[in-house]
């Protein structure tokens, strides 16, 4: 073989390798290539440091292939697919090769016709100590480089057959590559060479060590120790699941994740492993391995996590759709928070099986009427909370459970175990999530951290606006993970800035506490009519909003109307079509919720109705509160007021100047898109995508989240 000519492709994978790729390629092109037709291929994993530019400029003979993801094994496959040579050499590039590196492989191939792959003798760069002369299993499926950190000795001077070899510097015969197939991309990096070694041997190929082929390696020059440890341990499970599936359960207690108590990484790695096993083995083997995991996992990682593990496997193995449980404690009346959760449920049910978990009667039939949305038909799960029943409250209040010896929401926590995604839309911070993935939707943190506080256990803390976000930081010392503005969808094709009537609209619940300030609005309108009859002639005030039965505040509002004696209409619990029509017809929108209130509980945290008005070219004149400040730009898309005098002044400006009103109506309409259903859908779907990726075992790796970079090689 040595006398005839052969073609060799040298493949190396780069990721931000600008500091060492040049010296590597220089050493490669300086190597002895007699009787060899050399092709150099660099597969780049998305370097951002100019690696590709440097190679193209200084080494035009090198073929550069750009990988679309940062995956070492995939990069190898791309490189191999881009070559047609008799032999393929794979090597790290934080290295330099000896002049005899390529020639040194060939005698071993020539002497051993079944040699499928041959490894070099690898030294540490600048030292006389060995990095590797082969790879061996030590015990419990841990592998190490033979000769690692040892001085070279005579026993390494002869070619030797190996069980495993390293991808740090190896040459493969084309016929072996064709026979064994592509490298397993699920390994991403580390142990992909051990896996390939096992597959080569399984196909009857031999693996050899070639002492005459020498490479000098920087060793971990491009990989963090943390990332290396993570992938080595994760991939150990993949390897076992693939080649020794019945040893999978036994390999858990000897894993580093287990010994170090890193159970979240252990859990995640085992999910990957079982999926790999299911892809490689028959039903009987998979069943047997699952049973062995069932025998030990509850003890190793706890009953709850073991339960979640087997639940999540159903999704991971494609056996069913993702199940979502949404908990709401007050779905029996119409309010912004309920609308928020209803829209969320409606969007999620397009992909998933959604179930509502409720503690009180749910008014599904009314949702279409209230919010113009169909709610999930699939399921309602009623779980009554005895404590809330005893309190006989219309809505639950966290303060009532603080004195309890046992968390009254444990039944909800237990129910959450049956879902892949648990969404707590109740704003109750004591509900513990036990689903594999959980979201806490926070419209407003009602209380400080207290007994049974569970929000830290959620994967996502979603806030509905900046006010909720700042209060979450202040009261809970937590950082929200997502901001999802409430979805507002009150667009009406018939609305226009020009076709408006002389109507001032207020759309707000007639809250028993009086925090919505309808009485103050009536009085203010009365004063305006008396003080400026010429400007207010023909104008009327319309108050619409939800109300509970026997609402004493509503009675007071009606009495205020009679007292003032101006044109005021009061419409409690109006039909959605009537509300739409009023938005279309009204010129000005008033909102005074939280005016002169001090406690954050009595302030509007967002204000969906303001956006609804803006979507219908209705100019908002709103209280200068936290939620409204986020929506209305004062003097551009509406006005904000600090007291009732300012409300009067701004309103009169609009009533007396149609031009200003028209311009503001256009800007208000444009501004409203930020809070539209479309934007909500887009952001929610993005969150669903990332959650789904985690549930399905795609590599949204814990370490990747911490911005640790995946290098091109080890």
């Amino acid at each position, binding site marked *: 073989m040595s006398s005839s000519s052969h073609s060799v492709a040298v493949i190396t994978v780069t990721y931000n390798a600008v500091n060492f790729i040049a010296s590597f390629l220089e050493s490669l092109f300086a190597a002895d290539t007699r009787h060899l037709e050399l092709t150099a291929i660099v597969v780049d994993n998305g370097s951002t440091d100019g690696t590709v530019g440097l190679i193209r400029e200084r080494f035009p003979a090198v073929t550069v292939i750009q990988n679309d993801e940062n995956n070492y094994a995939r990069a190898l496959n791309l490189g191999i697919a881009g070559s047609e040579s008799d032999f393929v050499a794979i090597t790290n590039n934080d290295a330099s090769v000896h002049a005899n590196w390529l020639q040194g492989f060939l005698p071993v191939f020539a002497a051993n016709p079944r040699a499928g792959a041959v490894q070099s003798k690898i030294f540490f760069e600048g030292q006389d100590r060995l990095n590797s002369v082969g790879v061996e*299993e030590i*015990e*419990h*499926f841990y592998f190490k480089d033979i000769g690692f*950190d040892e001085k070279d000795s005579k026993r390494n001077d002869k070619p030797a057959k190996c069980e495993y070899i390293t991808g740090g510097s190896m040459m493969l015969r084309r016929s072996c590559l064709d026979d064994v197939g592509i490298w397993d991309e699920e390994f991403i990096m580390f142990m992909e060479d051990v896996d390939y070694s096992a597959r080569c041997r*399984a196909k009857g190929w031999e693996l050899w060590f070639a002492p005459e082929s020498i490479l000098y390696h920087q060793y971990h020059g491009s990989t963090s120790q943390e990332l290396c440890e993570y992938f080595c341990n994760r991939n150990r499970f993949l390897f076992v699941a*693939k*080649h*020794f*599936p*019945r*040893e999978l359960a*036994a*390999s858990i*207690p*000897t894993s580093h994740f*287990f*010994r*170090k*108590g890193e*159970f*979240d990484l252990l*859990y995640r790695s085992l999910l990957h492993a079982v999926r790999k096993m*299911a*892809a*490689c083995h*028959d*039903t009987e083997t*998979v*069943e047997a391995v*699952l*049973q062995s*995991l*069932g025998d030990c996992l*509850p*003890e*190793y*990682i*706890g*009953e*709850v*996590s*073991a*339960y979640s593990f*087997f*639940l999540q496997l*159903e999704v991971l*193995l*494609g*056996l*069913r759709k993702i199940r979502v449980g949404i908990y709401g404690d007050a779905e029996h009346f119409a309010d912004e928070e309920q609308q928020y959760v209803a829209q969320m449920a409606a969007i999620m049910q397009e992909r998933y099986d959604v179930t509502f978990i409720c503690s009180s009667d749910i008014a599904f039939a009314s949702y279409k009427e209230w919010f113009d949305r169909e709610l999930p038909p699939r399921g309602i799960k009623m779980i009554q909370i005895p404590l809330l029943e005893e309190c006989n409250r219309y809505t639950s209040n966290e303060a009532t459970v603080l004195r309890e010896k*046992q*968390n009254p929401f*444990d039944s909800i*926590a*237990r129910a959450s*175990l049956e879902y892949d995604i648990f969404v707590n839309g109740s704003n109750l911070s004591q509900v*513990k999530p*036990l689903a594999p993935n959980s979201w806490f939707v926070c419209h407003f943190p009602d209380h400080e951290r207290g007994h049974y506080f*569970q929000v830290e256990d959620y994967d996502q803390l979603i806030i509905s606006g900046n006010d909720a976000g700042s209060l979450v930081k202040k009261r809970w010392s937590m950082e929200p993970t997502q901001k999802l503005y409430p979805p507002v969808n009150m667009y009406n094709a018939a609305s226009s800035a020009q076709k408006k009537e002389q109507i001032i609209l207020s759309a707000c619940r007639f809250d028993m506490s009086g925090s919505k300030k309808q009485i103050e609005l009536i009085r203010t309108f009365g004063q305006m009519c008396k003080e400026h009859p010429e400007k207010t002639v023909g104008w009327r005030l319309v108050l619409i909003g939800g109300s509970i039965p026997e609402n004493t505040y509503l009675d007071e509002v009606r009495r205020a109307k009679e007292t003032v004696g101006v044109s005021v209409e009061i419409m409690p619990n109006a039909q959605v079509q009537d509300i739409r029509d009023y938005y279309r017809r009204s010129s000005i929108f008033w909102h005074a919720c939280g005016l002169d209130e001090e406690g954050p509980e009595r302030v509007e945290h967002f204000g969906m109705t303001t956006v609804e008005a803006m979507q219908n070219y209705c100019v908002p004149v709103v209280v200068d509160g936290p939620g409204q400040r986020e929506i209305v730009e004062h003097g551009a898309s509406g006005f904000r007021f600090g007291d009732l005098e300012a409300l009067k002044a701004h309103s009169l400006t609009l009533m007396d100047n149609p031009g200003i009103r028209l311009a503001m109506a256009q800007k208000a309409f444009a501004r409203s898109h930020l809070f539209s259903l479309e934007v909500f859908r887009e952001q929610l779907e993005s969150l669903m995508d990332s959650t789904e990726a985690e549930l399905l075992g795609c590599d949204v790796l814990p370490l990747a989240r911490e911005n640790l970079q995946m290098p091109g090689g080890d």
Partner: protein
Amino acid sequence: VASLNKKLAYLRDRMVNAWRMIREGRFHVFTKSIFQELRTRREAIENRYRGRSRLLNSRFYNSRKVTPASYRPTDSVLLSDQVSPLDGQRISASLLRLRNSIKLSDGIDG
């Protein structure tokens, strides 16, 4: 007795390993293995006092039930080129049965 047997089995594994390394003249690896074992023991003691795991009810974490696996992997199951598709119904039933077998009575620590 079972616990003692496990400890003896573990000790036996270590001794087999040590003898193998000495026999092959790999004194460097032998020394490193001793230090590795000492480090593992120290970590085990530290973990005992570090508090609870992030996951619920890990009895391992509380009671330190470490069960070493066998010294070497045993029966290799070689990959076949043609893997028959999984019987989804059977696997679903297995997973459901496994979930139902887990006792969650004290599994929720709200």
